[in-house]
């Protein structure tokens, strides 16, 4: 059985009070809390083993390099990439996406070309493409979604044609929770020779991701959203693509030979890793992945589904509460509004009850525009949350409605 109480004891930050109330942390979509094993790993590295990687031949540097490269292997295995060459460490999803928008953009996008994204993207998967489109005089096209917050597949078919250079899509929407049918979409795209980048920031923490099975060309995610430290992220890319792309940032580690006349670049994956790596965070993230695997991805997904169903049922029963995002396939996110009450008011009052929820646009302003609202209140739940916490949210919302009537 899934022993939530035991799991909760692994997360020291869960055991605290805010305003004298026990913390209910429902802001996991923004960042997750960290299990003790991750925190301890950082502490051990900085207290004992710290030393810069790759170029050193002394003991500490060699050991640290090994650990760093082990972390890369760990990530490879976690998403089932073919080889470690396909695993680039970045400092987050945003940096991973910008790496591709810049390098792929530089190499393959020309004036008049189209770039396809969806209507439910996070700003990190919109703005890099807007910047690229502007620089290259390319055209940004948007796949619409329906009222449930699902991609309109027929529209996708219409929009997809040979003039599209790349399709960038979130695997899971952070604002609505929608799990997109990415495998099917990738297949359609590949039939038209369109490579696909998946923004996996919200998908990786919630279930099994197999990049070979999905057959995506690029996949991006962040350590801090998958129980790992900040300042680390992953860019997966198919080797044949990464080989074709120019490097992005210049600096140490990404070069083979440097002279003022001619510089040659390092092999994959280092070609895309300029400057001192955040190896402590990479190793910390690998520990987080171990932690997830030990719990079991399927068990996590099943438990989180339970939470989602429970929360959906419970909150729907509240008079005047409207849930945004009713996709058939969803992660444990409930985005909602109480009729006549601003999301900010809701957030501020819940906060004082010890309930940490995110309010606003969730960095997905076009989603709000689509629904004609200025924001939502979002409860994003993960495996250390409980039904009792959902009950507290329910009670809090009932109280809140009375306050604002």
């Amino acid at each position, binding site marked *: 059985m899934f022993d939530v109480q035991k799991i909760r004891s692994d997360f020291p930050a869960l055991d605290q009070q805010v305003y004298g109330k026990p913390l209910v942390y429902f802001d996991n979509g923004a960042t997750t809390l960290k299990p003790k094993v991750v925190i301890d790993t950082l502490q051990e590295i900085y207290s004992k083993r710290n030393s810069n990687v790759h170029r050193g031949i002394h003991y500490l540097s060699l050991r640290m390099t090994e650990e760093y490269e082990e972390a890369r292997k760990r990530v490879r295995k976690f998403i089932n990439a073919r080889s470690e060459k396909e695993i680039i460490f970045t400092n987050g999803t945003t940096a991973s996406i910008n790496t591709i928008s810049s390098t792929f953009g530089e190499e393959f996008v020309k004036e008049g070309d189209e770039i396809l994204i969806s209507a439910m993207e996070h700003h990190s998967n919109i703005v890099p493409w807007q910047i690229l489109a502007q620089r290259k005089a390319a055209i940004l096209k948007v796949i619409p979604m329906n009222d449930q917050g699902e991609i309109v597949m027929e529209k996708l078919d219409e929009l997809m044609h040979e003039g599209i250079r790349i399709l960038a899509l979130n695997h899971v929407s952070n604002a609505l929770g929608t799990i997109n049918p990415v495998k099917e979409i990738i297949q359609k795209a590949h039939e038209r020779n369109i490579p696909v980048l998946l923004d996996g920031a919200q998908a990786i923490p919630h279930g099994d991701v197999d990049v070979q099975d999905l057959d995506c060309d690029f996949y991006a995610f962040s350590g801090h959203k998958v129980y790992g430290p900040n300042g680390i992220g992953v860019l997966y890319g198919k080797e044949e693509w990464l080989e074709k792309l120019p490097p992005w940032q210049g600096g140490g580690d990404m070069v083979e030979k440097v002279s003022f006349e001619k510089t040659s670049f390092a092999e994959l994956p280092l070609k895309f890793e300029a400057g001192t790596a955040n190896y402590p965070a990479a190793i910390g993230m690998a520990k987080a992945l171990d932690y997830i695997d030990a719990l079991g991805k399927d068990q996590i997904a099943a438990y989180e589904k339970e939470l989602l169903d429970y929360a959906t049922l419970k909150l729907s029963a509240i008079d005047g509460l409207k849930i945004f995002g009713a996709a058939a396939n969803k992660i444990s996110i409930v985005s909602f509004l109480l009729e006549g009450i*601003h999301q900010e*008011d809701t957030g501020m009052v819940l906060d004082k009850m010890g309930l940490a929820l995110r309010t*606003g646009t969730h960095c997905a302003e076009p989603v709000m525009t689509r629904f004609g609202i200025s924001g939502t209140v979002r409860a994003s739940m993960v495996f250390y949350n409980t039904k009792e916490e959902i009950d507290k949210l329910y009670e809090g919302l009932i109280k809140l409605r009375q*306050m604002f009537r």
Partner: protein
Amino acid sequence: MTLKEVQEQIIDEFEIYEDWMDKYNYLIELSQDLPVLDSKYKTSEYLIEGCQSKVWLYAKMDGNIIRYTAESDAIITKGIVALLIRVMSGRSAEEIKDANLFFIDRIGLKDNLSPTRANGLFSMVKQMKLYALAYFAKQQKS
């Protein structure tokens, strides 16, 4: 009442509320007393945009003093706006531009008015003072 006295009055009013919910209830009440902002001022020109809620602020000179009216789409924010107006409106430009708004901290609303809190209230106070500064400069010149 001086600026200081009004603030102390507000602090006294809030003193009886031990609980955040009571404070918020009082702010909700206050929000209802805020005179409605003429809809012609609910335009982007008068908008102070934060990340979450919107505040519209209008200021006019009335002889030597400045009168503010304002509005917000969020209710608690509107309550705080009401307090700010109660403290600041109807005073001289000079008084406003140098105002030390200590009551905010004392009634526990510091978070709402800190610059790191990405909302319109901090910008609103700034904007109130900017108006005052502008009028003050004008007075000095003439």
